[in-house]
């Protein structure tokens, strides 16, 4: 059995990316790569452009300089059809879920399946929807609810279920555990870890959750003043002598 065996080519490559927002450079030469099967956390203070960076990685926004490659393909050089095809291979969890408010939760999860795999018979589709909702730990009655009837944490889980619907190879998560209680957060981390290990998923997430950082992330990338000031395993990065990094990790050691 060779499940998940594949090339070790980088899934995400960012080369000296630059972004200008409101007259100043939010990103000033950012470079990093993600290899298959990694969970990488992107940290940085508020306003360091983490969400902007994620939007650029999925092609919602084009960078003002530098290059972004997903699965070895340069986003800037893809035709829109190729970009659409590429987009089926990754999932994106928006900060507030971005569930379609006019649809029930189950329909939200079924949408990518219906659009991209229209030949899938209804019972199979519903089976997958049920599975994804169960995987993210939503109670059964949530499936028939409208997103506006869910709590923030449940909306987040529903959105993750939708992001997982097409069995993506790459997941972008924008603050996946914010708004979840610590127990649900650890449960979320565990689910993500199993999914990553068994499906050889690659995950890039932004977070402010130190427990998630220590317990889940294989690697941490630290953004500070438009640059990457740390890139490595959590233990290594936490030891970097830099004022911001020290105070960031210090908030935990106080406990």
């Amino acid at each position, binding site marked *: *059995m*060779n*499940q*998940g065996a*594949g090339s070790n080519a980088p899934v995400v490559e960012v080369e000296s990316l630059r972004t200008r927002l409101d007259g100043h450079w939010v990103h000033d030469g950012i470079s990093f790569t993600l290899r298959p099967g990694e969970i990488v956390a992107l940290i940085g203070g508020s306003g360091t452009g983490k969400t902007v960076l994620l939007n650029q990685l999925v092609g919602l926004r084009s960078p003002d300089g530098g290059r972004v490659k997903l699965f070895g393909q340069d986003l800037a050089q893809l035709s829109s059809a190729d970009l659409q095809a590429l987009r089926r291979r990754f999932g994106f969890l928006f900060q507030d879920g971005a569930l379609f*408010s*006019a649809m029930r939760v*189950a329909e939200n999860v079924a949408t990518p399946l219906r659009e991209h*795999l229209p*030949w*899938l*018979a209804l019972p*199979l589709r519903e*089976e*997958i929807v*049920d*599975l*994804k*909702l*169960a*995987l993210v*730990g*939503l*109670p*059964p*009655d949530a*499936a*028939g609810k*409208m*997103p*506006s009837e869910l709590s923030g944490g449940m909306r987040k889980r529903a959105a993750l279920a939708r992001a*997982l619907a*097409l*069995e993506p*190879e790459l997941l972008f998560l924008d603050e996946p555990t914010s708004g979840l209680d610590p127990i649900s957060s650890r449960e979320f981390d565990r*689910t993500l870890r*199993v*999914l990553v*290990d*068994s*499906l*050889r998923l690659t995950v890039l997430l932004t977070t402010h959750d130190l427990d998630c950082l220590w317990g889940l992330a294989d690697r941490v990338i630290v953004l500070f003043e438009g640059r990457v000031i740390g890139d490595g395993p959590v233990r290594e990065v936490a030891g970097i002598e830099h004022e911001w990094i020290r105070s960031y990790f210090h908030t935990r050691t106080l406990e």
Partner: protein
Amino acid sequence: MVTSAAREPSCTLNTGAQGQVLCLHGDWTLRRLPRLEADLKTLDIDPLRPLRLDAGKLDTLDSAGANHLLLHLGRQGQPFPHLSLVGFSKQGLALLDLVAVRRDVVPLRARRRRGLRQVLGWHAWAIARGARAGLAFIGQTGQAFGTLLRHPGSMRWRELFVQLEMVGLRAIPIVMLMNYLIGVVFAYLLGIQMQKFGASHLVVDGVGLGIAREFAPLITAVLVAGRSGAAFTAHLGSMKVNQEIDAIVTMGLSPFQVLVLPRLFAILLMLPLLSFTADVAGIAGAAQVASLHLGIPATSFYGRLREVLPLSTVLFGLEKTPAFALAIAMIACHSGFSVRRDARSVGLHTTSTVVRGIVAVLLIDSAFAVAYPDIQT
């Protein structure tokens, strides 16, 4: 995972001395699901004999594939805990375990279907609730108005003036244009009829009465219901979605004071004024047609108008407008406040505001027409 070299999935069932062995081959993934389903259905699994899963030739397994396999085996009387698993990688086992455990915790959702009686009951209940909420809204607005009378200093002048500009000033061009055109059309049609009787000068009587008493107030109110009513609902609704209204409440302010009253006053003040500009524009349009097509010079048009159109008719037309204004503002603000926290709700409520606003205006207008049938000439 899903590459061009993906392998067709299949499975074979061998029955040997030590029980049944199910061998899995190829890719057990989402995109292969229909094929998997068909394959699994052909197997004849004996629920009474132990089953072993052999993944020695399995290439890829994803959660959809694992889930389908376990569901099928479960239905065949081979639940996950009783299976013996051979040849799975550590990750594969973890995935099967995750899927099985999560499936256990969360049972299949029940699908609800609503019958006719439930639908009827649900709608009746919604109407009753809506009526109650509407009454509560009127009451709360009245309460806020009472507070304002006792504390006149709490008037939101800035918001009021912003609304006066939006509702009144910026609506003048469209209101005047519409009524000018109505005046033109009305005078033209009436003129053709009157010419048959050689009584073209009677056009002035008809146009003056029609525009001052009905057309100008009605057209203006319908325009304002569409224009400002929709704007109120959309604005208040987005504020509701964004929790801004909750923020106003937690600051110890009343959303009725801050949001509803300025809008209500703005429409109450502006609708009569707009109606008057509408009167002027409509009559100007009629005079234009009269001089160009009916041979009535503008001076004799206005001279006759002064004789046949008493001030009371104009005032009657304008007196209706505060009633229109009240209905439009209350419907629009209430509708905005009842938006639920999703984007579609804003659109639905805005549509309903415009429809209900226009219907209310026409109802009030007919009530006035029935209540005051006397027309002074």
